[in-house]
């Protein structure tokens, strides 16, 4: 809430990621611009949507559905920063011609991760 800061649509992430929090253009170690797909490592983080079945009970069963979020950690001259790419992965701006082939493999991998998370949540349900 505190400082006034502009927001931008997720599809503009590649462009927005070029500017650091000091307002200066980010540069990689060898002086290039940041390319989220090329320069940044992909990380996943699972959050949940949980429902307490019987809130009136102290020991109520809890049901959770996973929400997979994606992040990319990038290195620039001043250190590293993280960009959430949950809404950006798989969009047109994320797919550069060079990786059109492997991107299919990527989405398959992502699906696998999601189902993994789903099974994790199922085991959570019993807890």
């Amino acid at each position, binding site marked *: 809430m*505190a400082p006034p800061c502009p927001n931008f649509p997720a599809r503009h992430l590649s462009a927005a990621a070029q500017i650091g*929090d000091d307002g200066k253009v980010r540069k990689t170690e060898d002086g290039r611009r940041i390319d989220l797909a090329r320069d940044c490592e992909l990380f996943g983080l699972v959050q949940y949507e949980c429902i307490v079945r019987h809130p009136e009970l102290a020991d109520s069963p809890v049901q959770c559905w996973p*929400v997979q979020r994606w992040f990319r950690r990038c290195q620039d001259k001043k250190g590293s*920063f993280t960009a959430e790419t949950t809404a*950006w992965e798989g969009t*047109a701006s994320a797919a550069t011609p060079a990786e059109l082939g492997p991107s299919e493999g990527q989405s398959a*991998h992502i699906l696998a991760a999601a189902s993994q998370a789903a099974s994790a949540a199922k085991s959570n349900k019993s807890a």
Partner: protein
Amino acid sequence: MPSTTPILRRLLRPTRPRLSPQPRPPRPPPSSSSSTTTPPHTNTPPNGGATGTPAPSWVGHPLRLILTTLKFVAFTHLLWEYVISMAPASGPSMLPTFEVLGEWLLVSKLHRFGRGVAVGDVVAYNIPINDEVGVKRVLGLPGDYVLMETPADHHGADGGVGAGAGVGSQGGGGGSMIQVPKGHCWIVGDNLVASRDSRYFGPVPLALIRGKVIATVRPFSEFRWIDNALRKADSPDED
């Protein structure tokens, strides 16, 4: 004022060293009368502390006892505020990482003000809009980019877990994003549907971070480390 001088003198007298290596020999009886009258500086520290009382000299006087207690309390409180603390936590906002009731969280205060905190860590923070303390997961640090809202709903919109949970299906670049301003962080509860966090009150100043949650303890039954939730995924263009 003559009555206060012995008190002051007793206060100023060196305490008996607590780390003294050799056991104290029994005190010769005649020296007891003289030791109370001699000025404190002529006393040697190891043997001069004893008066007629058998108790150690640092409990000798009520005022001194109060002072010692005060020092001890201050020291403990500083440890609690600056090194490590433990507190009960409740509420559904961090399900399933923490249960609704009965969790006691071990908080490392060395990470206060967000020192050494990384994306994916769980932190305890002062809620900026009221007087309470919250526990949430950090998703963005200064300069990072995060989604301002909840990511596109899976089980509601796509009709089933896993069915369309792939990234491609929610594509289209929906949602607004924000760059976390300097000195701030973006925190979101693990249970996205029951958490009031940065999606509601915006970025949180790092100065409000009390510490990093390093473990959860259920008294007499469970101890579990809390680790960073960020998991490395194999990037397709690297292999």
